[in-house]
């Protein structure tokens, strides 16, 4: 290859990357701008709001720790959604699988009391993955066998999971006391806080490590992202997943079982969502109660879409939504803006990412105007 041709091809690569990254960036920027507009119309100061938000999510090591804390389940839920989207499946009910994962971890952790951490931690995570996959299994079978839309079935299973967990923490799994919750997990079954891994002297020397409540679940999430990326890119499983998502008829003709791949895809998606529930229970609350997830499964949808279903890109996308969620409290406290604005910004991001046609739409409008002016 000549130098010039090579130069041109790298240029083209850069253009492709810029285009891929450009839409998400523009979407976030637009969403934040419109969010400011809404705040301004409602009589709030958007600059004060966003600076409070930034302060609450990146301002101090502890604030950054909170961002990591919120991002951890979002990475895992986002990975689950992305894996499903790649097979053209919309696992809108990730929240339900997340609940079941949390349930599995919260229950098994108590059963395994007395086991060392290297036994308890892997078993809990595994159990949560199985529980999440099991919760996705019936919708998966219904989708594969008779085409029942997974958006409705997984959503219904989310409500069922919530009531089930609510029943269990009030009933059979309730620990003694007034509050409906399970007993505290033994220390061996908890994901340790990041700052607890360092000595006081190290923390004194490097204060940026004092990340408050951030826990080792982030490591689980990062490893999961790399594994999902590797599976999608280099394994037969991932290839079949992508082939079915891209064109099921071609995949079937090529000898891939679309039904079986659909079942596997939704169950793997569910297992990742289950893992998200487990890290939240094992790392943050150390016990199960019915409000342990603040809609991470649903925010995972926005994470996956913003990442354009790329497993590695899920990490920065989750950090963004994690930061929004971590800073929302500070924003309400300091700038008096209702936290719900975060949900509006999140919805706007989804709109803009999904509306890839928006640019061509406005170009066409412009052309129409131009031709009508000429005529």
């Amino acid at each position, binding site marked *: 290859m000549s130098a010039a041709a090579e130069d041109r091809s790298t240029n083209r690569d850069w253009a492709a990357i810029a285009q891929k990254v450009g839409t998400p960036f523009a979407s976030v920027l637009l969403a934040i701008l419109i969010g400011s507009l809404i705040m301004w119309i409602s009589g709030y100061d958007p600059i004060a709001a966003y600076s409070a938000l930034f302060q609450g999510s990146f301002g101090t090591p502890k604030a950054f720790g909170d961002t990591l804390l919120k991002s951890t389940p979002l990475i895992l839920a986002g990975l689950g959604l992305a894996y499903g989207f790649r097979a053209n499946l919309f696992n809108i009910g990730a929240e339900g699988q997340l609940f079941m994962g949390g349930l599995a971890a919260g229950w098994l952790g108590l059963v395994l009391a007395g086991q060392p951490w290297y036994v308890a931690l892997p078993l809990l995570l595994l159990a949560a993955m199985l529980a999440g996959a099991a919760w996705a299994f019936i919708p998966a079978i219904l989708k594969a066998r008779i085409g029942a839309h997974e958006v409705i079935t997984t959503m219904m299973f989310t409500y069922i999971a919530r009531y089930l967990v609510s029943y269990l923490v009030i009933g059979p799994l309730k620990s003694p006391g007034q509050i409906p919750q399970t007993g505290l997990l033994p220390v061996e079954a908890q994901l340790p806080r990041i700052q607890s891994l360092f000595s006081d002297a190290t923390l004194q020397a490097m204060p940026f490590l004092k990340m408050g409540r951030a826990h080792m679940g982030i490591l689980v999430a990062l490893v999961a992202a790399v594994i999902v990326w590797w599976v999608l890119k280099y394994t037969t499983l991932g290839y079949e997943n992508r082939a079915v998502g891209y064109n099921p008829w071609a995949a079937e003709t090529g000898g891939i079982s679309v039904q079986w791949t659909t079942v596997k895809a939704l169950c793997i998606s569910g297992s990742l969502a289950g893992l998200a529930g487990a890290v939240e229970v094992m790392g943050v609350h150390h016990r199960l109660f019915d409000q342990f997830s603040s809609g991470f499964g649903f925010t995972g949808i926005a994470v996956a879409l913003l990442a354009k279903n790329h497993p590695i890109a899920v990490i920065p996308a989750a950090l963004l939504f994690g930061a929004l969620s971590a800073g929302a409290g500070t924003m309400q406290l300091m700038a008096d803006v209702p936290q719900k604005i975060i949900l509006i910004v999140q919805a706007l991001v989804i709109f803009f990412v999904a509306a890839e046609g928006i640019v061509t*739409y406005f170009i066409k409008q412009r052309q129409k105007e131009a031709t009508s002016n000429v005529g």
Partner: protein
Amino acid sequence: MLADIITPDLFASALRMATPLALAAIGGTICERSGVVNIALEGIMLCGAFAGVAVTLAVGNAWVGVLAAIAAGVAIAAIHAFTSINLRSDQVVSGTAINILALGLTGFLMEILYGHPGTTEAVETIKPIFRFASERGGGGFLAEVWHWVNTILFSHTPIVYMAIIIAIAMQWAMYNTRWGLHLRALGEHPRAVDTVGVSVLRGRWVAVLISGALAGLAGANLTLEQVGSFTENMTNGRGFIALAANIFGRWTPVGSYGASLLFGFADALQIKLQIFRGEINIPPQFFLMLPYILTVIVLAGVVGRSVGPAAVGKPYEKG
């Protein structure tokens, strides 16, 4: 105990519970028949429910609230129409964004207007139209029959009857008018509609806006006729159950209404059973699961045999 459960007001309650589902389901039917998937029904219903209460609280007249709910439904549906018809976004993704937007917007406005999250102040609900006297076990067989008929058919608020009329009128319009013919063709073969000189874009816009109006009305029924106040996320999956009802009703308005009656009955039954849970000894959460479990069972039972419009979910590009 069975005589205490199977009472006239169980069936009356089924009809009430079915109403918001039916209105949303008919909206879903019209929307999907035109080729646009509308999973935003949940969020549109929520916005309608909120607008209804907010305007009623401000103006003091519940009927103005109903109009506001419909207007809010149409406005939110317009976003879905623009993104999925003009911008050709993925319709399921656009619907998801609207559902999240509805949660955020109603919660945000609630804190701005009333200074707190959770539940709004109560409004005076719209009263039933008829008020005929009848009582149970009053005397004689005829009196008993009259009591059943009166309770089941004549004890309802206006939107409950409106839903029945809308179901029948839409069914008729869909199969007997030009508009209905075009609507059905839009979802099966939009190119053909385009070829005979009817605008695909306009036809789909109208369908999405109608579904928004109906889902908004469903929200009004929920807050202004049933509950009397707005609570965050109070639609609680009804928009998704309505989609299932639409499928179970084979994409027809009357079918959607019938399927909604089934889900409404399940809801009425679970509420009734909760009263007797001391005797039955089953935790309330299992009753609350009932409508959702039924939805999955119904979908599992019928979906294979019930086929939707051919072009549903596919954006149309004039070419």
